[in-house]
């Protein structure tokens, strides 16, 4: 990757970034001699302090691995990962543990993230015991304050996780994450397993907390509606590659990469008069053998010979908006190149 990697405008000083990721590389190997799975391939992005970057992608895109690498939960193979100016890659385990009070994570499954034997107040108190000097009444006062901040009644402090609804459980996880007054929060599909109405409430809470505490968010999601509602910028991933990054308003209204366009087309509006913006993309994400050129080429209706020769680099489309595609800047019309007949499985040959 070249200098197209960090997509930030030049006038922002480096200290304004809460997160800097450059040339991140991660390959998993089940056992010696077995096939490798490239989870992240040369990914670079930055997140400004107080902002939200959404990372969107489908299964196998590597979005959750990015989140884990960011917090040092998964060691990286190569690349630079800095959170709040500290290198996560070079950190010793002890350093990582002490930094963790400033960078927290909320996962998808609210119940799985909570110890079933801990009452809510003890679950929220645990990070305070680890990272602060608060004890006794002071600690309980802080726990109550946190419950209030996530709009949970004080009485719920005495409950066990299984006695709470999914939305309440996720609020407890958010309170736990907030307990140590972090500056950065990674949100890995925080509302994906919640009901629609609860999802909206939890997202509204996250937006409020960000405003109140100046938090920086990295939000991992498969759902563009969520990304559109809460993110400033969005990074689109496909098979471990970052294929498009930019301001939400740019990327989701004027996508440059055909995959982004298809992803937007797959977002189903609740307004029956707002029809999908793009035709249906054929095929499925292929795991296993990686294409030598563009990762999306096997499914791309705009594919040219050059696409299969080398990975396209990120090219600038507009300010702060880049995409890894040879058609960047050229007008194209997906609808005219995609058949609108009955949907075959198309480019997907055989069994995945």
């Amino acid at each position, binding site marked *: 990757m070249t200098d197209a990697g960090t997509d930030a405008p030049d006038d922002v000083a480096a200290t304004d970034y809460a997160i800097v990721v450059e040339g991140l590389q991660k390959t998993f190997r089940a056992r010696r001699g077995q096939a490798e799975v490239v989870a992240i391939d040369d990914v670079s992005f930055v997140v400004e302090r107080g902002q939200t970057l959404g990372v969107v992608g489908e299964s196998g895109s590597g979005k959750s691995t990015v989140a884990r690498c960011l917090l040092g939960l998964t060691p990286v193979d190569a690349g630079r990962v800095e959170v709040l100016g500290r290198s996560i890659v070079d950190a010793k385990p002890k350093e990582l543990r002490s930094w963790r009070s400033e960078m927290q994570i909320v996962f998808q499954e609210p119940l799985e993230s909570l110890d079933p034997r801990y009452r809510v107040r003890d679950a929220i108190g645990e990070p305070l015991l680890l990272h602060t000097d608060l004890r006794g009444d002071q600690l309980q006062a802080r726990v109550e304050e946190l419950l209030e901040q996530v709009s949970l009644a004080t009485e719920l402090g005495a409950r066990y996780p299984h006695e709470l609804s999914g939305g309440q459980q996720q609020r407890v996880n958010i309170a736990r994450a907030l307990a140590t007054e972090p500056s950065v929060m990674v949100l890995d599909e925080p509302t994906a397993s919640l*009901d629609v109405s609860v999802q909206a409430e939890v*997202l509204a809470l996250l*937006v409020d907390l960000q405003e109140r505490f100046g938090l920086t968010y990295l939000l991992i999601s498969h759902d563009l509606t969520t990304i559109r509602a809460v993110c400033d910028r969005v990074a689109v991933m496909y098979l471990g590659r970052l294929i498009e990054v930019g301001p939400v308003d740019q990327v989701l209204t004027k996508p440059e990469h055909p995959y982004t366009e298809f*992803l937007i087309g797959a977002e189903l509006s609740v307004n029956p008069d707002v029809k*999908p913006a793009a035709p249906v993309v054929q095929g499925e994400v292929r795991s296993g053998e990686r294409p030598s050129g563009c990762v999306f080429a096997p499914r791309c209706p705009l594919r040219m010979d050059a696409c299969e020769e080398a990975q396209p680099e990120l090219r600038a489309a507009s300010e702060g908006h880049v995409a890894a595609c040879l058609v960047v800047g050229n007008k194209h019309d997906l609808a005219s190149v995609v058949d609108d007949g009955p949907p075959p499985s198309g480019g997907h040959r055989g069994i995945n």
Partner: protein
Amino acid sequence: MSELLLDVRGLELEIATRRTSTAILHGVDLALDAGQMHGLVGETGSGKSMTARAIVGLLPPGGRVTAGSVTFGDQDLLAKTEAEMREVRGAAIGMIFQNPRTALYPMLNIEQQMSNVIKSHLDLDKAERVARVREHLGLVGIDDVDRVAKAYPHELSGGMAQRAVIAMALVCGPSLLIADEPTTGLDATIQRQILELIRSLQDQLTLSVLIITHDLGVVAQYCDTVSVMTEGRVVEDGAVRSVLLEPAEEYTKKLIAASDLGDIRKKRLAAQQ
């Protein structure tokens, strides 16, 4: 002319445990015209899946319909015995469920399990069964019919497995397809492929579809009519455009706003000004 294919009236259902019994459905009405795609939408615990299960007589242990009627064509489904319902399920009514992998038996290849379904409903010899399996795998947009027919479920991708499940549901030529969250858990682009497939099959096979979903987007883009359920009741139903563009009930309005997330976005943008 529209003709009523499925008519559910005043359906009440309770589930008994050892000590208590809990009412799950409180008088559900649902009408599906032939050739239509009807969405039954609701959140967790609304009773939408239980309604579907009651229609096909697949209630969980302790489940019992206490009132109401289910009329399918000219048949009273609630009056049928379990053996008679087995005849209906998989033949006149095809069903698909959320997780395609659990709907498939892991020890048999796709052709074997589809063939078993045919065997239990239709009087066809082996060659005819094989031909019918191949025909239906082609129908659901599988290019490489030979390989998929001989594949075991774990060898298929999620989208491919769901196509195979749909082929299996349709292999005996049902007039009604009940799809319970058929695309939940699939990637967004695959979700749209499967929904487009169901829509095109509906036209080709003059199929009626009852789709159970939590996703109002699916209803808005693919269904003709909709019933909105919450707490064991249908609170609003009708043509999709009228229900979603001019909702009468508070619950429907709330669900639409929550699905759209437009309020959060507006609030964020206002705060940034």
